């Protein structure tokens, strides 16, 4: 009874917090939306948010930068994370699996600033040897991939481990091969959980700031190749907010509100995919 009360109030508090943050962002974004206007965020020639009439507030490069860096990171990290979890669960000795688990745990616990520092001092010079300046979309995607692989691995590993042993034994008794079992019994069961893990990872990549600021190059222009610098929405806020006043500051809050909307729609999308796939499995 008491537990129910505590649980209920905790749930309400969490929901309230989200609404509070959204409201705060919108409140501070209000002056920019009113004076600059929604259209100019997409129609202006560049991002030069200096005060006065020369101010240019094109948010499109940051949107594209966030989307590209996140999508590339997911493209790299999702297959690696899922196959690594698959391998740990079904194809290696238990001791090795435990070793991998703890390694991933450490990776997940590394502060983003440490990964960023590694990216800046190791990854960026290495990419710069192929093409200057090295701080680029590629560097950002790789650093983000390193950061989200643990999330995907842990979610997938949990899903794979949850499959009852009797189920696998039954399939083996039917004379199915390992690959056959995976394809027919395992993957359909875990698909929704894998999707949830991937979405969680993508939202984390989208929101990551510190490491990205250090390696992405942060030039507010749409990149034409993997080797061009990008500025993400989060980097835009982190770089400029401490020094921004007036409309500039408000414009950054508008960017933050956009980021929140993006994350929100991703979460909804993830839930839809998950629901569709588990429904399909139950039928």
């Amino acid at each position, binding site marked *: 009874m008491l537990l129910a009360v505590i649980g209920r109030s905790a749930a309400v508090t969490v929901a309230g917090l989200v609404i509070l943050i959204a409201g705060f962002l919108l409140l501070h974004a209000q002056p920019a939306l009113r004076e600059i206007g929604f259209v100019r965020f997409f129609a202006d020639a560049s991002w030069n948010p200096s005060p006065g009439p020369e101010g240019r507030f094109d948010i499109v490069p940051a949107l594209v930068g966030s989307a590209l860096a996140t999508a590339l990171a997911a493209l790299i990290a999702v297959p690696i994370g899922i196959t690594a979890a698959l391998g740990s669960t079904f194809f290696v000795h238990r001791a090795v699996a435990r070793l991998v688990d703890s390694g991933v745990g450490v990776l997940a616990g590394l502060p983003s600033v440490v990964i960023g520092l590694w990216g800046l001092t190791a990854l960026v010079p290495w990419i710069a040897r192929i093409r*200057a300046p090295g701080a680029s979309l590629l560097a950002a995607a790789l650093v983000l991939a390193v950061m989200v692989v643990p999330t995907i691995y842990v979610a997938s590993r949990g899903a794979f481990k949850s499959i009852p042993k009797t189920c696998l034994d039954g399939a083996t008794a039917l004379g199915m091969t390992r690959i056959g079992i995976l394809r027919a019994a395992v993957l359909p069961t875990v698909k929704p959980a894998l999707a949830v893990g991937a979405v969680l990872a993508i939202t984390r990549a989208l929101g990551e700031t510190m490491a990205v600021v250090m390696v992405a190059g942060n030039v507010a222009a749409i990149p034409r190749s993997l080797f061009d610098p990008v500025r993400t929405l989060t980097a835009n806020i982190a770089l400029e907010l401490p020094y921004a006043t007036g409309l500039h500051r408000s414009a950054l809050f508008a960017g933050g509100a956009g980021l929140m909307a993006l994350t929100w729609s991703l979460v909804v999308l993830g839930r839809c995919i998950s629901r569709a796939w588990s429904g399909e499995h139950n039928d």
Partner: protein
Amino acid sequence: MESRSSAIVPGARLRGFGGVMLFAALAACARTEESSVAVVTSTGAAGVSVTGTVSVVGSSTIAPVLGELGRLFEAGHPGTRINVETGGSTRGIVEARSGRADIGMVSRALTVNEQDLAAYLVARDGVALILHSGLEVQSLKREQVIDIYTGRIDRWVGVGGPDAPISVIHKAEGRSTLEVFLDHFGLKPTDVRPSVVVGDNQQCIKSVASIPGAIGYVSIGAAEFAVADGVGIRLLPLDGICATTANVRAKRYALTRELNLVTDATVSPVTRAFIDFVLSSDATETIRDLYFVPIGD
């Protein structure tokens, strides 16, 4: 990097806390026995008895200096507390004007529109062009720097260096080093074609050290400190003059800026006492230790 910059300088705050407790205790005494306040309140080095809090906001370049000086001031004046917070020169101006802060830190000369504030020149700082240490370029002329930053020259061979691409490292909007740099070279923000945009001096130094063929600009003090620390960057002479604190002091080096404190018309006694302390000869040692050039020199 940036998240750090908005924090209150911790030492100044912590040591100031005791002072506030004392202040509160004194205030409580004052209600019953007026005379005890005068007895208990200590007098500072200058013989002026002051208590209270001074909030200082603005340039991240000046903040470490004032944080350190704040600690010294608090030690000499029990019952005072100096809160130093960073947020850029513009914020220093805005908050000093609105009265939200007692003192604004502004790491440039004041503009025509800012003459309503009282300014106190604390020190000078030079902005140095820095290169990746492996780069064989000995000196750059003013026009060459402009050509590099506007993208007209994009390989080092164009200024007598190796045949390697130039990575132009630039600061994000609002940084005072950026304003000083653009101002000195007569550039508009939109003229610059950066390869990489960074936030503060440290990020710029790390990026220049990591990227072969990189050029950037930071506070001379910060650059000299990094070089002494073995970081892979090199300070570049400008128009044949070496970028050193010594040359800033001698006013030979051109790319310099003023480090100012600003206040509005109403200045509390404790704020006045603190400003006097910052401008006094007691402060020059601290300013020099942090690689800036005191005005008295």
